[in-house]
């Protein structure tokens, strides 16, 4: 793609002059036009410019400032993170002693469902709102075949996609010649354990209210996911002609009793459909709101977790967990960010000091060098 003059133009008597490739444009004017280059700042490469010079003198103060900013931030994050209460139970039932061991090899359609109860004790009370997560390990929700196995326009309420799902959903696209709604591997493998939490006080079990709404992104719930539209609000009718995903016990329009949490806009479903980034992940399951200002949300004490164990993970060596966590302004418990900030801030500060000493040593040796010449 060399930018050469076309020899022809020159041969026709206009020795091209103005610039490369522009031979034609300039050649037209011919020899009469003065070829003196314009004396503009841009063409003479003399545009006014800021010419920063990063010297030790300018950078070292920046090191200090950064150090001074980062360390407090880091400490703040670290403290916040440490104040977050988090409790995690693995209820996979690998260990024979585990109450859920009996359910380890459940299949999808085992009736009646296998249930188990795990008792645990919270050492500290959970003061603010508590978020209940389920966690899966070794579950590759980010596998490419899995990630793409969905039809977003079907989930968006598109009627034609409802009955004719995208090919990406294969092999979960149709069942017995009927289109699956919602189609695809993600929907098909939706997490369907039921977790119930009880506070055990003097052998009485008090059920703790678990709120199942408000766990999905607002935009997902209200825009991205929509039930099919049609005459009336009867979901059963709207999903007419489709069949349930193979592994589901119930069709999509029977996910929940409340109409604004049923069908595609069921929040458990929406949360599941947001594929996790890593093979070990947590998903928000329920919210436990703080009832009054006087009592903590979850007091310290004994609790029991009732599990309707439907979801088989043993076959792929997976794990299932239940996590209770409070949340701060920066999210859940994660010491990484705080430690990283403190470390980087300290390194900055330390290097700043060391370099400043060296800098001064040499700076004093030849101070004349400071004067720009």
């Amino acid at each position, binding site marked *: 793609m060399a930018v050469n003059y076309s020899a022809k133009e020159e041969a026709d008597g206009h020795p091209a002059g103005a610039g490369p490739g522009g031979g034609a444009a300039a050649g037209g004017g011919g020899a009469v036009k003065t070829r003196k280059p314009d004396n503009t700042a841009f063409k003479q490469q003399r545009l006014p410019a800021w010419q920063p010079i990063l010297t030790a003198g300018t950078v070292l103060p920046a090191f200090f400032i950064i150090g001074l900013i980062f360390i407090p931030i880091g400490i703040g994050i670290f403290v916040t993170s440490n104040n977050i209460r988090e409790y995690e139970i693995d209820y996979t039932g690998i260990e024979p002693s585990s109450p859920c061991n009996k359910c380890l090899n459940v299949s999808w359609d085992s009736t009646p469902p296998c249930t188990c109860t795990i008792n645990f004790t919270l050492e500290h009370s959970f003061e603010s709102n508590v978020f209940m997560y389920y966690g899966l390990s070794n579950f590759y929700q980010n596998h490419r075949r899995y990630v793409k196995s969905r039809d977003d326009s079907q989930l968006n309420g598109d009627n034609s996609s409802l009955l004719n799902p995208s090919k990406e959903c294969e092999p979960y696209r149709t069942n017995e010649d009927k289109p699956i709604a919602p189609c695809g591997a993600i929907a098909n493998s939706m997490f369907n354990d039921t977790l119930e939490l009880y506070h055990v006080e003097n052998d009485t079990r008090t059920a703790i209210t678990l709120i199942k709404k408000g766990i999905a992104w607002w935009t997902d719930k209200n*825009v991205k996911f929509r039930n099919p539209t049609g005459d009336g609000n009867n979901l059963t009718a709207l999903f007419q002609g489709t069949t349930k995903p193979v592994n589901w016990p119930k069709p999509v329009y029977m996910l929940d009793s409340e109409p604004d949490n049923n069908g595609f806009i069921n929040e458990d479903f929406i949360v599941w459909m947001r594929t996790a980034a890593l*093979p070990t992940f947590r998903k928000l399951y329920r919210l436990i709101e703080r009832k009054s200002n006087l009592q903590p949300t979850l007091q310290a004490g004994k609790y029991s977790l009732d599990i309707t164990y439907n979801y088989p993970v043993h076959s792929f060596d997976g794990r299932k967990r239940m996590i209770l966590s409070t949340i701060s302004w920066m999210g859940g418990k994660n010491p990484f960010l705080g430690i990283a900030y403190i470390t980087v801030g300290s390194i900055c500060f330390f290097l700043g000091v060391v*370099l400043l000493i060296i800098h001064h040593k040499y700076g004093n040796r030849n101070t004349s060098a400071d004067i720009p010449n």
Partner: protein
Amino acid sequence: MMSHLLPPHLHCCQCHVDANSPQCAGEEKRVGTRTVVVGHRPVSEADAYVAQKFCDNRIVSSKYTVWNFLPKNLFEQFRRIANFYFLIIFLVQVIVDTPTSPVTSGLPLFFVITVTAIKQGYEDWLRHRADNEVNKSNVFIVENAKQVQKESEKIKVGDIVEVKADETFPCDLIFLASSSTDGTCYVTTASLDGESNFKTHYAVRDTTVLCTDEAIDSLTATIECEQPQPDLYKFVGRIIMYRSNQEPVARSLGPENLLLKGATLKNTKKIYGVAVYTGMETKMALNYQGKSQKRSAVEKSINAFLIVYLCILLSKATVCTTLKYVWQSNPFNDEPWYNEKTKKERETFKVLRMFTDFLSFMVLFNFIIPVSMYVTVEMQKFLGSFFISWDKEMYDEEIKEGALVNTSDLNEELGQVEFVFTDKTGTLTENSMEFIECCIDGHKYKDCISEVDGYSQTDGPLKYYGKAEKSREELFLRALCLCHTVRIKQADQVDGLIGHPECKNTYISSSPDEIALVKGAEKYGFTFLGLENDFMKIRNQKNETEMYQLLHTLNFDPVRRRMSVIVRTTSGKLLLFCKGADSSIFPRVQQEEIQQTKVHVDRNAMDGYRTLCVAFKELTQKEYDRIDRQLNEAKMALQDREEKMAKVFEDTEADMHLIGATAVEDRLQEQSAETIEALHAAGMKVWVLTGDKMETAKSTCYACRLFQTSTELLELTARVVGESERKEDRLHELLMDYHKRLIQDVPKPRGSLKRSWTLSQEYGLIIDGSTLSLILNPSQDSSSSHYKNIFLQICLKCTAVLCCRMAPLQKAQIVRMVKNTKGSPITLSVGDGANDVSMILEAHVGIGIKGKEGRQAARNSDYAVPKFKHLRKLLLAHGHLYYVRIAHLVQYFFYKNLCFILPQFLYQFFCGFSQQPLYDAAYLTMYNICFTSLPILAYSLLEQHINIDTLTSDPQLYMKVSDNAMLQWRPFLYWTFLGAFEGLVFFFGVYFLFQNSSLEDNGKVFGNWTFGTIVFTVLVFTVTLKLALDTRFWTWMNHFVIWGSLAFYVFFSFFWGGVIWPFLKQQRMYFVFAHMLTSVSTWLAIILLIFISLFPEILLIVLKSIKERSHQTGIFDLPILVSYKRIENGYVKTEDALTNVAERYPLRIL
């Protein structure tokens, strides 16, 4: 120098370099002739007229037509290896089920291809337009004694064409008749070789009378001539005229009878000519076939890096594929219940599956070799080269022209030059000659004009002043007046050339020497008045007009290095005057005459003047007849005419009498000495290659400080080697001696230093053409390569080399020899004349000086500047900047794509090697096109890490980028490690962040696309800020594109995520970016990761800054010719020194 005397006798200049092209290779073999029947009138019924097929007169410089543009252009574009690679990637994406949609690589490729196609289409359209202008122009053809108007492209070989004044010739014509009775016409060939002087062409003698349509139509003749060949100055042919009842008459045809297409008729009302070569067979068309492409060293580095990255790509894909199958060997990993394969997938053969997996990984990682780098590099080169032609400091008021860029491919090469080969005359010197003095029979005459005027009022100047005999003086001056090819140009006079002698005449000649000589003679009272009908008119000192019949002109050629004329005086005496270089005259005159003149010649040469010797001889009528016959015979020869002519010239110019010598001064160009000094200081070795004689050249070299007084000169010239039989032995001795002095006796510096001028003594070498040919082509083939090697070693040790008495081809030979030495140093040739074209084409970078010797050099060069002094800014400032810019551009591109793709690679370890892309397709596509392209483009156009003035005034800075310093493996590794480090930081930073249950204060969780978006955001900001850190010259444009790109990224992300796009299959990015920004943790993490990524860079700057200080005092005490990077760094921090050269400059300048 040789070519100054007469029109340059260059040998097809295109052919030296491009010897393999079919056109040139065929040249020697093209012995066949073609027969042209004038006016298509069969000569006789007896001669069977076999119509030869000739091409029509259509000039086609365009490459494409409307119909073949698309396929042909696409084919040409995909022949480039990079485009082809991307095409393959695209096709793989289309065919195989790959992670990213074909759009991600198809769109950039489409963009690149389209832009290039539009550009090439536009250029071709311009060519079409220019072609049409030529092809459709009207010409007049004489058919059946009538003028017929036709389009130019309709001309057929054999047509008789009429051309009027100021028209250009539509094809190559044999000149038959003109409106002027003497059968001459004047043409300028400005558009062919740039020489704007008028050249006289001669009609075929027997047809000069046929100057009407009717008369010319009566001509029955055939022309035999050679097949078309590109040499503008060569033509051999024969015209055979048939007249009723007479024997056919044959006349020879030479270049003087040939009117070339493209030349313009001047000062002649009209001419008739018969077309012999048409269309693409004209000499002009043959000359405009592509120059050989020069590739820059940067491009070679890019290709090397590309191969590294290709290996990285392949190994990444291989690693992933292997691990994928290792991982999948576990059945629950291969196909867990929640993620079953499709039927098709299950049924595919394993080998095929592995292969497609491999291809998929290739596609996933293919962004590591960026399609956009090629576009950006092209754009940078194209746009960047404008700055050279815009530079007003390289504009010359005198010729009203600035620098000219013929190719933008070599901009950065200007910053890498190690050897400068320069012509002397017209390049180092002004090439405006001034007659200084002369000597006649050993007596010196030095005058100034006023004195002449004074004397001429009395009885002629020479009577009192001179010491030689009066008759000898007059003979000498007549010789000066007669022996030349100067023409007189009169302003606005069309009729005849000889008007009023009093009116201001300007002499025109292709050689300034001749004008100087004629003017010199004028000073002494002999004025050349012009040439009329073969008679040269001279006004002598007594104001009488003398007439001499010009019988023959034995033209100048660089081999003979002399020219002669044979004239007949009014009294009938036959005289031959000859002038030429002393070495070519002395052997041909009486030996006893030489000595007295030689003293003067040598002294003048020492003073740096150009000397010519003048000799004459008187011919008897008998001798003349013989010469005349021989010359005509030789001229008539169809084959080997050159050799035959040379033989006759050789015989004729013998046994002459030396009259005297002239000295002409060629002033040094302004600042050429300073420029040479600067080039030296910048670590370049300057070699002067000249055709001049040694003494002249040597003094010029001293004058322009190529040689210092302290320089020890080594000579390898005919003088020291001698002419004897033993010269080879002598040469051997000398070579060995020099070799010993320069190489063996010098203690070896540590390591292999390329530019070792730590030697205390500077050496200069002088060699001349004959010795060079002895070294390069010795008679005994035994030690040939040995000599050459030793010679090269000596040369490379010398700071300055002067090669004198060089033929044009020898100049190219020298350049080639240096070019091919170990390490292949970058060579630059600079010259102004046609004799420099070969070396300009041979060198890596060819610079033409827009001098007085025509435009041949400028046209064949890569860059043309008005003056030698402009080389300083061109190399030291422009070259340096271009190099730094493009080197940074290339490194940056590889770096930013490495840290772009590395997280994606790492992600494969966490997604079961399933080729799941980390980033959304839009980000994958736009990363190189939109988000990170403009800042680096702006940087690579505007960056001035050191002020231009500083660069120009401090040549030593040039050495910092020598040896392709910024594109060596070390800086490349540094950038690669930087990219890898940042890639790791991006990925694992976000990975650890995602260990959290939730990042939002409402406990909601993020998915894989948020993960990718965070990585991508950190990536875009980091690479842009990294560039910001490297930018040392922040114009508003830099601010605009850097902050603008970041703003655009944010804006685009919002926009892209803000809408449910109906054309997308998946709404993965819906509100992902907005959600990401609602999380405080994400903000903190992004800021932290950007800072960590840039931290090593900042730290390095500080460390260097501190180190600079500690070394600062030392640096300024260094000897001039020592490269900084070794001394200051020793072995400790060479890597840093190499890697971030750019950043160090401003620090040092302080």
